[in-house]
């Protein structure tokens, strides 16, 4: 294993870099897209159920099917990394848009009413009050999306772009265990670190959640 690592460090690092790029760019796109969509699902209640159902259907499409279907729809080359980025963005939005809607719906009405009474307009109230209060739930959804994105990227190796997944296909073709093990370990490690990073961000930006147990759950 040590030998394999030192002899192939270039290949492994390139694969790792591609893996990170392919997994994290869709997360950023997903956040930017799903916050407004989730908000619309709350602002217009008749939109909520169609939104949840669409997200459910999109999320249930198997990744390999989506990877090979997108080039037909987008007109991209089958080997283009854009397919992977778009597919994973779709999964991220399918998961997060619903989470954002649920989190905003769960915000205590009295908090919203107090903010309105203090003179907050709709947009300022959303940004300054409702979203911060909903943040712990949204970030919990983000953790799920990030971890599953990182493990899904490797399926892309079957169509030639898959970050660490390329180590799997290489090992499989050569009937050689090391690359597969290194790929799995790195992938799980990256997922764990990304998960931890979100937890730390959450602790930093929502300090009030830590006092909840002490004073009877005022949030």
């Amino acid at each position, binding site marked *: 294993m040590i030998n394999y690592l030192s002899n192939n460090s270039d290949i492994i690092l390139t694969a790792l870099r591609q893996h990170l790029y392919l997994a994290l760019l869709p997360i950023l796109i997903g956040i930017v897209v799903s916050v407004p969509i989730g908000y619309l699902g709350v602002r217009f209640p008749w939109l909520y159920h169609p939104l949840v159902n669409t997200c459910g259907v999109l999320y249930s499409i198997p990744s390999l099917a989506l990877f*090979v279907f997108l080039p037909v729809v987008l007109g991209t080359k089958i080997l283009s990394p854009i397919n992977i980025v778009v597919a994973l963005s779709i999964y991220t939005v399918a998961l997060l848009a619903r989470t954002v809607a649920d989190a905003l719906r769960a915000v205590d009405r009295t908090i919203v009413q107090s903010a309105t009474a203090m003179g907050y307009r709709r947009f300022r109230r959303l940004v300054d009050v409702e979203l911060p209060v909903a943040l712990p739930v949204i970030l919990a959804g983000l953790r799920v999306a990030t971890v599953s994105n990182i493990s899904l990227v490797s399926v892309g190796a079957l169509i030639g772009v898959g970050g660490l997944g390329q180590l799997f296909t290489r090992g499989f073709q050569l009937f050689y265990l090391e690359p597969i093990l290194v790929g799995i370990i790195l992938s799980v490690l990256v997922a764990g670190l990304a998960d931890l990073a979100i937890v730390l961000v959450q602790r930093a930006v929502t300090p009030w959640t830590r006092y909840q147990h002490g004073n009877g759950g005022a949030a």
Partner: protein
Amino acid sequence: MNLSYLLDPAHWHLTAPGSLPQLLLSHLGYVALALLIGTVIALPVGLYIGHTGRGSFIAINAGNAGRSLPTLGLLMLMVTLLGLGLTPVLIALTVLVIPPILTSAYAGMRTLDQQVIDAARGMGMRPWQVLTRVEFPMALPVLMSGFRNAALQVVATATVAAAVGLNGLGRLLIDGLAVNDYSRVLAGAIVVAALAIALDLLFALVQRWIVSPGLSGRVRARARRATT
């Protein structure tokens, strides 16, 4: 979009090897087997941990660990270790089924209202009766959502299994890509996506059917309608 492969009646012969119905059937076979074995293993363990509270650490982390395991890597690891064939693939699929079912069985049992369980005990129910007639039915909605997640994951991974020589609908994707037959790839993608959505809908219906109407709120809705 070129739908010629999907719409060609020659690819829909029931008995021809490699036809769409045959691939669909083998795909469903892998999914059913993995779900069955995974449930038999994970359900009792999850219920036990949820019922006793012992080992909650395992149940909480199983879900996260399962999500972070790259499915393609797991498949190729198993095949490289054990050789080609159904067994290594089934092991990989089963490993993916266990975490969501284990975690949801545990979560379903943990979120129960403790007063309901006390009431059941107070009515003289034995521990086994409390488990089978109170706790399990009440944990079912959460449990079913975990089961549906597991089913989706297995349908998707069984597709990937074609890359390690198995049949199933992934054959259309892998073989189509290998010979640049995009019509075949598209047919595979559409049928797999339709299968995943149909299975999820089916399990949603099963869930509606087996979850007590008193839990899902349907009784309350009916009562409201009756009074107005």
